[in-house]
């Protein structure tokens, strides 16, 4: 379920402020994904996180399909 917040989160809630889809809310000590189905996976939360505390856990069906060439 994207995004995922790790222990580095300082609960500044910058991500909650800027989330383009309004899917985040202030949770207990860290943000919570209030509307996970509406996440656009745009990465704005990760981009603006001052603590490097966000990763995007892309659902399996959205992951690029690749082939190792080299």
């Amino acid at each position, binding site marked *: 379920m994207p995004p995922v917040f790790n222990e580095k989160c300082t609960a500044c809630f910058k991500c909650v402020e800027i989330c383009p*889809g*309004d899917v985040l809310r202030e949770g207990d000590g860290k943000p919570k994904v209030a509307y996970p*189905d509406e996440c656009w*996976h*745009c990465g704005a939360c990760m981009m603006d996180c001052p603590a490097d505390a966000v990763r995007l856990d892309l659902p399996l069906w*959205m992951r690029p399909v690749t082939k190792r*060439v080299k």
Partner: protein
Amino acid sequence: MTKTIKTDVLVIGGGLSGCMAAINAADHGAKVAIMEKSHTERSGAAGTGNDHFWFWDPEIHHRRGWTIPDMVRDISFDGEYGKTKGGLMDQELLEIVAEGTKEAVDNLESWGIQFRYDEIYPWNLQYEAPEGEKRFRIVPQFQSEWDTLNYDGRDIKRRLTEQCLKRGVEIYNRVSGTGLLIVDGKVVGATGVNMRTGEFHVFKAKAVVMATGMDQMRLFRAQSGDWFNSQSPPYITGDGEAMALRAGAEVFILQAGKSRNAGFQYFRNLSRSSGTATTCYPAGRFVNSEGEVMIRHPAVREPLRKRREEVERSIAEGKTPFYLDLTDASEEEIRYVEWSYGHEGLCWVILEIMKDLGLDFRKDAFELELEPTGKLSGGFLALYIDTDCHTNLPGLYACSPVQFAGEVAAPTYVVLGWRSGEKAAEYAQEAAEPTLDAKQVESEERRVTAPLNAEDGHPWQEVNKEINNIMEEYKGYVAGWNLPREDAEVSRAGLENCIAQLEKLKAAEMKAEDPHELVRCNEVMNLIDIGIMMVKAALEPEQHERGIWFLGRQVEGEPEFRKTPIVIKYPSKGDA
């Protein structure tokens, strides 16, 4: 719980175009407010960046003998891109856009966005600059001339937000526009609702600029199967167009169409197009399953015919799937692509995802999603503006979406935003103090907040899915117009049935559990209004003269954008 705001110019939508409009309206002395559904720092199609910008430089291009009319002709007819569009663009507006691009770049640069570099690369346009002066990284991009800049645009929305605030523009984030307020045929403001608090907002304004974005996402079934797996923001749901329609504005409609060739634009699974088009310059190759290079690079002037032939041949030979493959590129080229990805919306995040999944452009080829010949694509609706960005409604200006000038994306919205801000501010200076109609405001508040107050009703997702079903039917019936004449009546009955279903859906009660869902419910209501308008327009026989459906017609000889489209006023019964 109602908040009332008084301003000279209200901008609805704080994306690229809306911020530009607000900045320039303020520079022309207006008091300005932005009503933004999301947050201006990261909202809109350029929310997480933009790395390419079509532009005309009076020195560089003039010296190369490349004029603005050349550029407009190229993108409308001649260039590889133009050939796919066949004149479906408003060339007068495009000329205004082209003329405004250099000023736009100068402004953006002065606000802290880097456009010029000490180092340019062999694949950039080599041009002379005075000793010690930094140069643009200019690339060819579907066009016949080198007229696109690559630049550091990741934080363009943050910089624009700073410039708005610096000028005292009041930004109302998380407030979604719901309706235009009209008194004596003039636009006197708009209403909105806060997506987090539910607070109803009433903006009293002398002029309104509509800048809600370039799409009606979630009107049609998403190609990916998921509304939120998309190239354009899935939150751009035609709110501005629906508001304007309800107020009687004229619109431009591109009807659903049928593709004539097989193609691809997205990664498999990940519905994002810039990473497989503009942003992989100069290293992205399209290869078939045998590793044979079909297209050296999509953004360079490879003849479109060749591209089609290569794709069709590989399909016929069973050499599928296709891949975006950078593995034979030099390290320097790959670094350039990674820089571009780092600044283009939705591409920076792909680099991050690649890190997590252990993927590398140097080693891995990315599968592309094939689109079959005859695929039906959805329609598009936009506000119809004159060259001053004015709609037919006094006091209502628009910059995004507007009739088919938007195909060059960011530059269109930056320049038309800028222009609409200036024109709206000038209009506001002359306009009388607006007076609101209290009854109108009251009934609008009732209409908008109904799902929150409803005891029972359908969740927005349920209604949205049914809209998709109906619009899929419409796509099929529109394609039916391609059939012999005797089948036309079948399509007509089908289209009328679509309208009846949409009207029925409009009457269905919705239920929102919170203000966030309330806004989603309103988006869905807007999509219904847009759908009804689009299907009604498809019933007008005059427009069915081309393979691509639009409110215009192909004249003898060269196709041209028609300046006087057929206008069907909402909510009439479809009278032309």
